[in-house]
């Protein structure tokens, strides 16, 4: 059974069909790519999976649970981690605090614990900070722990956002155009980092990306879409060679 299962998702905005009957699977430990030119419906698909957009038809299942009607935070609790196309770090908070917010998913202290300074409160804070530190350490970002997240250049911000998502201990990690705004060297480093995360943490990933240099070396399986419709899927090489994909990216030569 696949970890993330999208079946027949269709989204219409007025008369425009943004996504038309898309299905895809992400299995445990797999890195899956979703590619397509601008306007293909990638971001809408992404929003359907994360819960920002309710599909007109179709279902999204996470680890066997139907999450189609669930709000974003409930999906996060079920193990869906994500990053944003435009980095959404908490400006004004340190990098460590940014990560701690995510790590608090596993802690429980609430308003009453705050009021009474129950032991659970101190434990919550310590656990979250510890988890955040461990993730920073793992990604070699410990030197940024005390830096204001709002002041980071985009290359670092993307890494920190990735680290924050990892603090959720996601079973599936959704990455929305992680390479946008990165230069080729940064992109290269990012790709190797994702490979390393797969090798060590082993969480599955779904990459929405139009940069082929990210998708090709990383992905086990690639779905291509255009005008909201699935074009083809297969290994990166198969998809790259597929005539429809070539046509979608480069345009067709009409005889």
């Amino acid at each position: 059974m696949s970890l993330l299962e999208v079946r027949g998702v269709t989204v219409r905005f007025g008369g425009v069909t943004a996504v038309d009957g898309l299905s895809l699977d992400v299995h445990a430990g797999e890195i899956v790519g979703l590619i397509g030119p601008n306007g293909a419906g990638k971001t809408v698909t992404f929003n359907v999976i994360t819960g920002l957009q309710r599909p007109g038809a179709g279902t999204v299942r996470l680890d066997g649970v139907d999450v189609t009607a669930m709000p974003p935070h409930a999906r996060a609790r079920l193990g869906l981690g994500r990053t944003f196309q435009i980095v959404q770090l908490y400006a004004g908070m340190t990098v460590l605090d940014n990560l701690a917010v995510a790590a608090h998913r596993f802690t429980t202290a609430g308003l009453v614990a705050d009021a009474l300074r129950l032991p659970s409160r101190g434990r919550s804070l310590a656990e979250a900070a510890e988890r955040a530190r461990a993730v920073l350490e793992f990604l070699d970002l410990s030197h940024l722990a005390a830096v204001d997240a709002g002041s980071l250049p985009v290359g670092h911000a993307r890494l920190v956002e990735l680290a924050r998502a990892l603090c959720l201990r996601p079973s599936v990690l959704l990455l929305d155009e992680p390479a946008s705004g990165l230069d080729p060297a940064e992109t290269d480093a990012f790709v190797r980092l994702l490979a390393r995360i797969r090798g060590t943490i082993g969480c599955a990933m779904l990459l929405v990306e139009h940069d082929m240099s990210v998708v090709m070396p990383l992905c086990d399986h690639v779905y291509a879409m255009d005008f909201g419709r699935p074009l083809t899927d297969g290994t990166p090489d198969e998809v790259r060679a597929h005539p429809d994909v070539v046509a979608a990216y480069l345009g067709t030569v009409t005889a």
Partner: protein
Amino acid sequence: MSLRLALALALSGLPLGAMYALQAMGIVLVYKTSGVFNFAQGAIGMAAAYVASGLGVSLGLPAWLAVLGAVLFGGVLGVVIERFTIRPAKGALPRTIITLGWLLALQGLVGLVFGTELGRRPVSLFSPDTAVRIDALATAFGWDQLGVLVTALAVAGGLGLFFRRSPLGVAMRAVSEGADAARLLGIRVRVVTLAAWALGAGLAALAGVLVTPLLGTLDTVGLVVFTIQALAAALVGGLTSLPLTFAGGILLGMGQPVIGRLLGSPAGVNELIALAVVLGALLLRRRTGRGDSGADGLEPAPLRPLPKGRAAGIAAGAVAAALVLPVLIGGPQANFQLAGLLAWALAVLSLVLLAGVVGQVSLCQAFFMAVGAYGAGIFMSHGVSFLAALPLGALLAAAVAAVVGIPALRLRGLELAIATLSLAFAADRYFFRWTPLVGKDTVRPLPRPGFTDEVLHGVAGARAYTLLVAAVLVLCAWWVASLRRGRTGAALTALRSSTAATAAMGFSVTSLKLRGFAASGFVAGLAGVLFSGLSHIAGYAPFDFTRSISLLAYAVIAGIGSVPGAVVGGAIVTLSALSVGGGSGEIPSGDAASVVTILTGAALIAVVAGAPMGLAGLVSRLRDRVASPPPAPPPAAPPPSERTDETTEIVIVTASQSERFGPDTSQTAQVGKKGRRP
């Protein structure tokens, strides 16, 4: 209800509706050209009505001259407000809060100059004799009603011509479409904005002068509450179109008597209807995506690391000693004054929690206090002891605050200010006369412990009660500080920065915001019970809308987001009351009250325009300056064409980052495309 009766009722609401329309058009005009919501609109009308009464009745000038003078006064006032207080401030919400300062200041000034006693005669342009009788509906119109209606129609028509024909009117329309574009076309935006304020305030003045004879009374409160009607009419018009706004006012005026009759004409039903219209229109606006996404929450105070360890211990000890000393040596009077101070500090703290931690604004905090006090009264009437009724009443306030928080899930910043202020107005007129809450006599006994002791044993009871209030304040301050640094605080801080990212981390945005509102309502409720306990009576007098606005003022003056600032805020309330002889934090009356209100308003204006972080911000800035030598002035931002510094920095960062990912990073890192911020 027969159709005939409905029609007659609707017609009877026509003149008042025309006045709503005039006020609302002034609000929309100012909002469209300057983005500021003028909450002082009703207060300007009130001040103008007093000026007209002063000119016409006291000085004996002819009525038309008195009215003209009052309208001119309104226009000049608008110019003063814009030029000297709005313009120096930055941001739509802070500027709107400045108009609240004017609301207070005008209320106080009028009270000081003209006195607050009732029975002052308004100037009337038209006689109340019957002008038209409509026999088919068994109703009649007086010359006064007809005159007001015709004047309003003429003014609206004149405005229509003004905006279509006159250069200034066309320029105003251009500015309201987009100030920057207008500026590029050579329009002097500042002059146009100033003119819009003059016109908007002039409309407010005209409406105020015309409406007073219809209402029959002239006081410093009624016409300020009138603002809620203008808010409702303006929102019906979508805050954009003046003709629609006019129609909204007329519709509201005609609808109110009909709906009011259907609801059994309870006291304050017009304000209740206006509140429903305001909330409905705001929520609808959000849903259809016409809200102002730009208008964000209050500028949160920078979250400083709170003092830890010994310093905090010494500070807490010093504060505790300062608080306990008067309790030990003072008599009952000193104890009550201190208890009043602490209760108000608690109220300001509830706002610090809401504004500083949750990042939401509330202009109905005193209403939550009243709910807590009345709630405790209800519980005590069922035999619950005071100490148990205290948290129970506060829980009721928390529940009400959570209900208020539901619209706040969709609204924020400016819109939330409109919604909560409308609630404060409606509370004054409706909820504080609603018997299930306030009882038959609008007061509920709240026999606190120590009351009988005082009678028997003098000061002992007063001391015990003061210590109770102090203990609750300390516990709540501890709670707020603890919450801010805890798990919920982290999530709330994150929420203010990015809603989407916080939801993506598994936090329910709905639950977080509602919990924030409930917690704030709980603290406000505690404050309400404890303050009311001082006088053994839960009543609404200390919790009117002026108090709600003042509480926000004190929170802003003391520094939103600062827990010690809350105590400073409470001290301001009490000291200002004491200095003018109010005693034990009671609401002072007469001239003294006016002076306090003026000072509060003036301080609010000064702080928002000059020191947005409040006193706490000033103190921490001072502390930073003492602790470290003044930093070198930051270099002026280079023009876009010369941003070499920044580019270099980013290249270096890129290189060092690349090194971290492995030894085989190619040298292209340093010559690659420069990182750009999204």
